[in-house]
């Protein structure tokens, strides 16, 4: 009876994942233009910015920069005030009820990313062309295999082990740039250690138990691993692309004539976007105002897709992690876990003191 129920769940899960995959297919291939060409991207990586902060504090932009910073600060204060309120507490409890689907979303994201990367003859991102990697044909096949194993939940830990080996292997080709994809590394580690049994064939075959049962007591590390490595990826990308090689962002700005939209110089917008991306990365690493920070990052990601007509598939992973973090916000290694209860107590004491006191 139990096996029958599990079989229904596994097959149902496979059908559900297939439908989601097919649903994403047109979207993932609709945006064929990427922001810069491979040639422009390589050229931009050879140009180093001398003083990337300068555009923020020059006389023309200082006031705008300070007003923007103040607006952001006020938004974060309002978010903490909201977090301390009773409705926020209730909403938090409701959202957390969906925590079981967090790992499922991530599984979906990583598997579709792998499959679309393989279709594009790339790995992890469109700029990491498999044509640069020795034995790329093997890697391409493994990307499909790992993608489908993770999608349908077949021997997920083994798939993660293969994915980890691929990640290490391509690091020999792409070097430190792979830090941009630290979020994938985090996901792979989590899948390797803890699997993902919900709506999977593994649940049917192996049951709930992990391959290494001792890892069960470390399961709470799932979210911190994903969160911290996602933050590292954003921080690194923000620093290298928008600061160290600011010319890349300037090229994008000029290519799309964004001056008509922002009415500011390319250097100022590049530096501002760099500061925003690095702060988002840092806040995610620290777990500071997690949900608000993730929502801001989602707005950035969505705007970049629509405005620059970027490829959708490289962003699937970012969406997956973001939605997962929106649900599983505030793990024990976050500043939120410390600040919000303290703030709540403080407000109760100072603003709404109990009549007994």
């Amino acid at each position, binding site marked *: 009876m139990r*096996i029958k129920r599990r079989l229904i769940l596994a097959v149902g899960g496979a059908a559900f994942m297939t439908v989601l995959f097919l649903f994403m297919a047109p979207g*993932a*291939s609709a945006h*064929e*233009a*990427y922001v*810069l*060409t*491979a*040639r*422009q*991207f390589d050229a931009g990586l050879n140009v180093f910015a001398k003083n990337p902060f300068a555009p923020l504090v020059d006389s023309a932009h200082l006031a705008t920069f300070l007003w923007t910073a103040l607006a952001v600060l006020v938004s974060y204060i309002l978010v903490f005030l909201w977090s301390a309120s009773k409705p926020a507490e209730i909403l938090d409890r409701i959202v957390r009820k969906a925590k079981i689907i967090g790992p499922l979303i991530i599984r979906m994201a990583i598997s579709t990313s792998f*499959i*679309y990367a*393989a*279709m*594009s*003859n*790339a790995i992890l991102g*469109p*700029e990491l*062309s498999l044509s640069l990697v020795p034995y790329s044909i093997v890697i*391409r*096949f493994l990307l*499909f*295999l790992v*993608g*489908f*194993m993770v999608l*349908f939940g*077949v*021997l997920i830990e083994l798939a993660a082990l293969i994915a980890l080996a691929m990640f290490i292997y391509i690091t020999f080709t792409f070097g430190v740039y792979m830090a941009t994809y630290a979020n994938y590394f985090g996901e792979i580690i989590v899948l390797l250690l803890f699997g993902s049994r919900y709506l999977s*064939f593994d649940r*049917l*075959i*192996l*049951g709930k*138990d992990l391959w290494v049962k001792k890892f069960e007591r470390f399961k709470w590390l799932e979210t911190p691993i994903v969160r911290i490595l996602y933050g590292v990826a954003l921080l690194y990308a923000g620093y290298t692309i928008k600061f160290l090689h600011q010319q890349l962002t300037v090229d994008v700005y000029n*290519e799309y*004539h964004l001056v008509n939209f922002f009415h500011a110089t390319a250097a100022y917008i590049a530096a501002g976007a760099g500061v925003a991306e690095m702060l988002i990365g840092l806040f995610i690493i620290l777990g500071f105002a997690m949900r608000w920070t993730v929502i801001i990052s989602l707005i950035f990601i969505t705007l970049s897709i629509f405005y620059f*007509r970027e*490829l959708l*598939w490289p962003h699937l992973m970012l969406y997956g992690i973001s939605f997962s973090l929106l649900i599983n916000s505030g793990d024990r290694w976050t500043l939120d876990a410390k600040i919000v209860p303290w703030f709540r107590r403080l407000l109760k004491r100072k603003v709404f003191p109990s009549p007994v006191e």
Partner: protein
Amino acid sequence: MKVQKHHWLIVLSFIGVFILAVVFFRNAQIQSGFLGLPTVPCFDVTKPTTQSYTLHISISVNGKDYPLAATIGHDPGNCLRVVHTEDASGLVYVETNDHVTYTLQNLFQVWRKTFTAAQFDSYQADNGHILSVYLNGKLQRDMVDTPLLPNSIIEVVYQ
């Protein structure tokens, strides 16, 4: 214990995903879809035009004409690639804002057709088939890097 009990399910499900991976892999190896970074930029009308010329490209597969698409390089979102066509006659336009010499490989990238020394689209050079490229009548050794030169005639022959 459970693993031993349901080992047939492990094998079965793994075979399932393996077959799926093989099918997708084979398809990807021969398909014309390309979702990676384009290597040919958009033509920017606001910048000076540094090169502007045409050339003729013809493709034949097993003796039959394989016409070029009329919309090569006309990407959505107002992007006209610097290598593009205006009709299916085989006339290729090169209009650029740079001084780069574009190649036959670039044209096929824009067209999103596989083109390597051993394959054009889904046609693979093997024991019974040969893929060759002629530039102004001269056989090209490095087919993919055949330059797109002004007023030149390029023939891609698969037979």
